């Protein structure tokens, strides 16, 4: 029996001899894998069901009882010896195989990830949504109405009587059946007050039209946002505070605003409002050069505002002795152009995908 064991061991040594001088570094992955297969076969040959070890185990029962234990132990030891030597090699080879595989399958992680190309929202939409979010959070309702209006809503109700210069300006588009493309979103002030009555707090973003020759700062169709707040005891301080508040929410806490007297038929007193430049923080200088959005003045002119003219209130059935209110309006294209440093607003209606994809 002992000889039998010794023979098995010799055979194993013989079988494993080819691994003795194996220099792993010289092997390719396929060779390593072939050797691993060889080891698996050896394991089966030496310890599998048909192996001499298994044969020897089966013979244990035939031995005299007193020999069984020692012989059993011997076989057990031999088996683990065999397994140890094979598995040691297996581990070594497997680990090397993994190394090789890892090296072969390594990726260039800088290559772009797989994702369908995405589009983007129009910069006007992006800005409109931000502004709507701010005003809704301040308790305003978002309103809109007709783009094609009659003279009453576009002019008369807004205290722009026939013969008024603003009305005779040649830049209003008229339709052949006597209607006007609204030249300002102030029309929505009237429509909304008629619908909702007062008190009221609304903003009205929308398209407006002026028959202007397109150039880098003019286009015949653009967007305005109109704001209106009418209630008892509304003052110019509320106007100034509201304009300052939403501009601060849009451009940051440090934003300052300034109002200058101006003239609009539908407000009295009237003002234009400017805000401190978001780029140079009102200094007029950015990175040592004259700041572009504010042209070095530190201030950006944004829009018009004022206290709603008593005639406008009366036209909407509101008693100006009881109620007062403020209104403001500004152009989205102009604001957008400043925000994103776009030097030609005509680009906004070309729908060039190289342009559109820049905004998010």
């Amino acid at each position: 029996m002992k000889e039998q064991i010794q023979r098995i061991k010799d055979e194993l040594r013989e079988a494993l001899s080819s691994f003795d001088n194996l220099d792993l570094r010289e092997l390719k992955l396929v060779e390593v894998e072939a050797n691993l297969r060889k080891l698996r076969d050896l394991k089966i040959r030496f310890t599998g069901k048909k192996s001499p070890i298994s044969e020897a185990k089966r013979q244990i029962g035939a031995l005299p009882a007193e020999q069984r234990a020692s012989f059993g132990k011997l076989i057990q030891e031999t088996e683990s010896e065999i397994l140890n030597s094979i598995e040691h090699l297996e581990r070594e080879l497997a680990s090397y195989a993994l190394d090789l595989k890892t090296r072969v399958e390594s990726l260039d992680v800088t290559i772009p990830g797989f994702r369908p190309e995405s589009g983007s929202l129009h910069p006007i939409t992006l800005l409109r949504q931000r502004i709507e979010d701010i005003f809704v959070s301040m308790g305003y309702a978002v309103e809109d109405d007709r783009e094609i209006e009659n003279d009453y809503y576009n002019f008369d109700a807004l205290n722009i009587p026939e013969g008024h210069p603003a009305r005779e300006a040649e830049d209003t588009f008229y339709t052949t059946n006597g209607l006007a493309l609204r030249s300002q979103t102030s029309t929505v002030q009237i429509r909304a007050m008629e619908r909702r009555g007062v008190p009221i707090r609304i903003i009205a973003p929308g398209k407006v039209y002026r028959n202007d020759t397109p150039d880098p700062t003019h286009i015949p169709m653009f967007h305005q946002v109109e704001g209106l707040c009418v209630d008892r005891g509304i003052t110019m301080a509320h106007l100034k505070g509201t304009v300052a508040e939403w501009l601060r929410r849009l451009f940051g806490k440090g934003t300052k605003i300034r109002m200058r007297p101006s003239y609009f038929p539908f407000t009295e007193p009237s003002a234009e409002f400017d805000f401190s430049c978001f780029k140079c923080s009102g200094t007029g200088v950015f990175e040592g050069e004259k700041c572009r959005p504010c042209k070095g003045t530190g201030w950006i002119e944004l829009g018009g505002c004022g206290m709603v003219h008593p005639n406008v209130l009366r036209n909407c059935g509101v008693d100006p002795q009881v109620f007062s209110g403020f209104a403001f309006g500004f152009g989205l294209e102009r604001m957008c152009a400043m925000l994103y440093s776009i030097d030609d607003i005509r680009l906004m209606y070309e729908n060039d995908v190289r342009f559109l994809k820049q905004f998010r």
Partner: protein
Amino acid sequence: MNISYNWLKELIDFDFSAQELAEKLTNAGVAVDSVEPFGEDDYVLTFDLTSNRSDCLSHLGIAREVRALTGNHLKSLVNTERIPSDKPSDLVRIEASDCYRFTARIIKGVKVGSSPDWLVRKLEAVGERSINNIADITNYVMHELGQPMHAFDLDRLEGSRIIVRRARKGEKIKTLDGVERTLDDTMLAICDVCKPVAIAGIMGGEESGICEETTNVLLEVAYFDKNSIRQTSRRLKLSTQASYRFERGVDIENLIQASNRATELICEIAGGVDVEFVDIYPARSSRVTVELRPDRVRELTGVNVEREEILRILSLLGFILQGDFSSDKLSFEVPSWRHDISIEEDLIEEVIRIVGYDSISEELAPSFGAGEYQPNEARKRNLRKVLTDLGFSEAICYSFIDISHDEQFELASNFVNEGLDEKFITLKDSIIEGAVRMRPTLLPGLLDSIRRNFNYGQRNVRLFEIGRAFAALSKEHGAFPVERELFAIAMTGGYMLQNKALPIRELDFYDAKGALEAAFDALNLPEPSFKPENVRHLRTGQSAAIYFGDRRVGTLGRLSDSIAQKYKFRQPVFVAEVDLELLLSLEEEKVFYKKLPSFPSIVRDVAFLVSKNLSFAEIRRAIKEQEFPLLSRIEFVEVYEGREIPEDMRSLTIRLEYRSEERTLKEEEVEAVNEAVIEFLKASFGVVKRFS
């Protein structure tokens, strides 16, 4: 309008530098656009005045603003205080009510020549070219006092008299600019006894103008109706410094001073004797009085301005307190140069603009109600998000399109009133040539945009737009049109990956359809049906109409070859347009949890050879209607056309999924049902299973 800093100082004293002055005036509502040095020691301030402040269109006007800011007095310019004769005179007759006041001055024995240097320089400062001493003086006084005036050669006036009347239709006059102009009976003309010699308030005639030989001058200083001048100026397309001022309103009480000032300068510079001065003032009206409750200043501006301060500011601006200073209502007479003050709020603005808008504090209005978005804004934002995620960029196109697009596109259902002769809304004129049609569809705008992208070398383009389309509702004049919000997509080129140079394949009909399906999901709508229908602007066989129930909401497909040809598109373009308003009016799908299956399913993928006339939807519906036992789902796997398949056929692979809620199914029982399905299709459509 330009003002010379030094000239202004002749009218009032102040300590501001030109820069400071510009800033102070701007903050008081008289906006200065720029300050430029002029000559050695002068500055020119360029003003950007609002249309209501015609009173500021002169050095005197700006000086009055400086008076309000500083409290300093105006300096007197005119030495002679000659009062015109109020005796009836043959010299001037007013026959039209549009002329409110007319003064005529006769100065004899002048010598026309060039102006002295100081006069030339001053005119140059405000941007005027020197002509001759008489013309220069009238110009000078206009810039100084704001009153336009005109000098005639008295000897070239037929009958040496002036008649102010409406022109007769067809009357002609050659104006000083050398252009012959035809007048009509809405226009006010200054005439001699036979013909117009000037277009009132706008421009004089060449024949009666001052020339080198002139020795006797008739100086006209008058006031005309603002609207009359504006209309005439519009009709003649002729705008001058004079018309600009008259149509905004000049100071009717300043005529005498202006005439005196000009006469004084003419006598001094050109020689001559002031011999006659006539003032016809038929339209003398009472001055406007406006009441102000001092408390209202605070109520409207939030700034507490004392009653004394209110009075001080308004007095400096030329308003005259009438009656009691301590009463609840202060009554102010409006100065004759202010045409823009008629209500209490106007006075409040006067006070607060001088106090300074900077003194207004910042407060938030007390809250009222909750904020709200427009109905459906959330759904629209979802829609936009899904489309951008799918690779579409948002376009905004002009609402007016070229009339050449008419009749090219099928329009949204139930939108255009086909019974009308004029179905569309048309602009009288448009700055963009040909673009006078208010768009009844968004597609032309998107296709134009695709064309533009091609021109810029972009061949992979996916665009969408949400916007209004317009159509007439009735033929009644002034009737509001329909404004309908539509949603459209247009796509062409390859299916691109972000940051990768090549497309993975070309886009096709199903990409457009997939985008629409995703859009409908974003709007939380039930499942639509797509029916093969012919659509005017789409290629037959690749066009579908979209329905929710029996409501047709839009169309989808490949752009027709004829339209593609017009645009010179050399690759397929896919478009869809749906009625967004209609979609948003449909009831939203309510979401309820469905129990997850407890037992595994068995699937069978079966390839059928089907005629191209038979759609997947039809096959699916037919199988569904049979309610085969265990059959829980019918899914599309793939379609194949090409080799081995006859031209009028397709290979359509369908996945049939079998499931029981009670037990795990056995292969044999599934096989039996699956065979039954295949038999059914063969029996009802003649559809044969491939590979059997």
